[in-house]
């Protein structure tokens, strides 16, 4: 059963803080603060000096049940174990593209505790045997790029990065790479293409990046949050981590709340936390006493849920998947009663049509087509057939392409067209 403390109110650092322990500290990003107040680099010391083998690290992370925080929720330890053992060039890449509309948790991590990410990356690189790692970061994130680069510089100066770290014989180098800001570069193979200097387009799988990734070498791509939590897990042990969250979704997760609510922002919550309590109590409910119409629970790719569907949901992978949506990146978008779902649909479709890389035909043509029809309907020129057409286009875009951008556009469209069909009627000609 989920461990939910009734007194947990979200914003003040308390015992549920795993990642955001330094939140509110005046000098949080400094390496000294991290070392003194946040048990900084203790985990790295434990790994490198305490005689933990790479397998031990992987097994610890596996035992913690940590699931990738980028959106798909793939077990992080398992992902690491796919990398071929033995010597050879390998890479660890941090996915800091954070393009999913509604999400700003990775930025927040770099603002509050960039050293968690750096330390997590060194440990993960040790586990998979990577000599070099990159932080692939969205080009628009000027401050975050600076913060990450400063943290890396500090870590080099303190001897946590470079040749023969802490005398362990492990050598690791780290760099920040800034992308040009494309949603598709958040897809791991698209990110790898971009990092290689090519157009950011997903690559055909197989081969998977764990076998043939960046520059054709075994590569692991992890989300910022997944890596930043690794030092805590190593330092406190997997059992301590599993005390948070549910059995299948252990640990805490950062949630971003946006929309017309009293206290929007980034919250760290144990997984399994009740959604409506979170919205109404921790975030202070909707402003102006507005009524809730729908919630997009996991970034714009997650199908919208009606207010009724949200009533008994808890914030964990299984519960939200059970309701036909997904936890995704944990970006909760709150839609009040006075926002038309037709305009929500048009807005979403505009985004996906703009961001489709254009490689696979169903996505390239389908996203544009859905956008045009939704625009058409919003202008009051649509007909009932357009609704059916949108549904069948979306159905035929799903699962047909190299990456899941196509599904990410199709699923919200299907959800809105079916669940909120009544809202379209005033817009239709007949």
């Amino acid at each position, binding site marked *: 059963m989920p461990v939910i403390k009734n007194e947990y109110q979200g914003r003040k650092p308390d015992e549920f803080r795993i990642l955001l322990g330094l939140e509110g500290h005046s000098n949080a990003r400094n390496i000294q603060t991290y070392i003194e107040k946040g048990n900084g680099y203790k985990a790295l010391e434990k790994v490198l000096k305490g005689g933990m083998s790479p397998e031990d690290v992987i097994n610890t992370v596996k035992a913690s049940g940590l699931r990738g925080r980028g959106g798909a929720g793939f077990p992080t330890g398992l992902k690491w174990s796919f990398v071929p053992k033995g010597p050879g060039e390998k890479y660890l890449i941090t996915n800091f593209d954070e393009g999913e509309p509604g999400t700003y948790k990775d930025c927040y991590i770099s603002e509050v505790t960039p050293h968690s990410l750096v330390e997590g990356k060194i440990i993960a690189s040790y586990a998979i045997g990577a000599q070099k790692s990159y932080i692939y970061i969205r080009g628009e994130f000027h401050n975050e790029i600076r913060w990450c680069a400063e943290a890396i510089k500090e870590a080099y100066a303190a001897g946590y990065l470079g040749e023969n770290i802490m005398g362990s014989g492990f050598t690791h180098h780290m760099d920040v790479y800034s992308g040009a800001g494309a949603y598709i570069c958040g897809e791991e193979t698209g990110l790898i293409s971009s990092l290689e200097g090519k157009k950011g387009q997903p690559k055909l799988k197989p081969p998977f990046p764990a076998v043939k990734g960046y520059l054709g070498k075994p590569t692991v791509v992890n989300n910022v949050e997944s890596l930043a939590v690794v030092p805590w897990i190593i330092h406190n042990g997997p059992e301590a981590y599993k005390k948070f969250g549910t059995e299948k979704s252990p640990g805490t997760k950062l949630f971003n709340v946006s929309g017309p609510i009293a206290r929007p922002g980034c919250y760290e919550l144990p997984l399994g936390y009740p959604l409506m309590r979170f919205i109404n109590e921790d975030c202070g409910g909707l402003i102006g006493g507005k009524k809730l119409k729908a919630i997009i629970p996991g970034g714009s790719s997650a199908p919208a849920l009606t207010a009724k569907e949200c009533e008994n949901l808890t914030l964990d992978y299984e519960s939200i998947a059970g309701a036909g949506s997904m936890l995704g990146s944990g970006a909760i978008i709150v839609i009040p009663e006075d926002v038309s779902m037709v305009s929500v649909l048009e807005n979403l479709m505009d985004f996906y049509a703009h961001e489709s890389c*254009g490689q696979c035909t169903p996505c390239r043509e389908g996203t544009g087509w859905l956008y045009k029809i939704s625009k058409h309907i919003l202008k009051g020129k649509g007909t009932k057939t357009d609704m059916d057409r949108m549904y069948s286009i979306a159905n035929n875009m799903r699962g047909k392409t190299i990456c899941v951008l196509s599904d990410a556009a199709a699923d919200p469209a299907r959800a809105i067209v079916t669940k909120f069909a009544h809202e379209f009627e005033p817009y239709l000609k007949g």
Partner: protein
Amino acid sequence: MSETVTLTIDGKEVTVPKGTSIIEATEILGVEIPRFCWHPGLSVAGVCRFCMVKIEGMPKLQIACNTTCTEGMKVITVSDEVKDAHKWALEFHLINHPLDCPICDQAGECELQNYYMKVGRYSSQMDEDKVLKPKALDVGDNLVLDTERCILCSRCVRFEDEVTKTSSLGIFNRGDHSIVGTFPNRKIQHNYSYNIVDICPVGAFTAKDFRFKCRVWFLNETKTICPGCSTGCNITLYEHKNQRQYYRLKPRKNMEVNGHWMCDEGRTMYEHLNATNRLAVPTIAGKHLSWNLLGKEFKQKLENVKGNADKVALVLTPQYTNEEYENILTSLKTILGNLPKIYVWRDSAEKIDDFDGILMRGDRNSNSKGLSQILEKHAAQAVTLSGDFSPLASSSANLVLVFGPEIEKSYSQFANEVTRFAELSNVIYFGTTLNPITKKFSLAIPTKVFAEKNGTFINFKGIPQKLKANPLVFPAMKGIEDIFAEIKA
């Protein structure tokens, strides 16, 4: 570990080497899975998402081009689910296509059209405005690009990257505004550009040489061999069904010789076939001679030197078929009593061992190997004339028979060198092209071009390849074999 795997496709069992993709396996079986981006000569892109098949045990449909066959795999290429997927994939390809088939050169050999008839046949659901993109772009010496017709299969981009390694093309922009194009200040300027037109499944790339000239359904296809160099690429030659006019040629797959490609220079090998430039009738001392009288005149000239084979010079060029060389040598031996002196005329500037790394060889003659084999068989000693014609001039021959090159442009000094023969007396010249000099020969005899011959060329590797004859452009024309047969009778 075994080296092959056995799987079933639509219930038919097939055994393929390990690592074969499903689409390659279906090719072996002769089952056609619709495809746009996959091409056997290029890497797998997997972007058109057209070649969807059902694999038992997999929840979603898979693309056949990037799925490797495994032991016991069961593939279904015809089911309602698969058919529906094909239909939708085609519809996605067509929603922004301009459908300008009536003015498109690809019409008739367009894969969008063909697949619409095979797997489409739906009524379009597209009511929105189409995306407009640049049209009629000049992207190189030989190519015109229409990005609206393009379906972004990326075959051309991969061809530039993988075959010619020139990388002049890329896909720009994103989503449904993606366009294929050349990089700034780059054009497609290499000797293999027409292959891009061939592999383009739609009318996006068209050939400057062919566009707006002829509808493809008026063309007959003949499978023959390119005479442009010693590689001997396998080609299909396109001739108008009703007019005696050649329009183009395209490569034909032969993995031992040319793979899937051929060079642009080879593509011009249809130009000299058409009547405009051809030597149509024999001339005697500059005056027309009817084909009926030719045998008599030719016989007369040979009779005059009968028994004096050493007073006859025979000049050969390596552009005739094995059968023709054989015929020439045996006939002359019979008529003259012995073999005449033999000279092989070659281009003075040629670099025989040159190779461009893809297909084209420095030896621009189609049958050098065949000629040397036949000469060897007849134990004939040949003198090579390459720039220096003094051996011939000093031979003081009473009669010189010259079998000139069919493709005159492969002789860099042709115009100069052919006058050297005109300086000699009593020259019988066999050639294909009309030029002022032919009138100076005592007898000029038109010969058939490669497209009108059944015969053999032996390429540089020693592979003998058969030519296939088309109907004659000049119906009254007689071939070398006919002329010799007539005078021997």
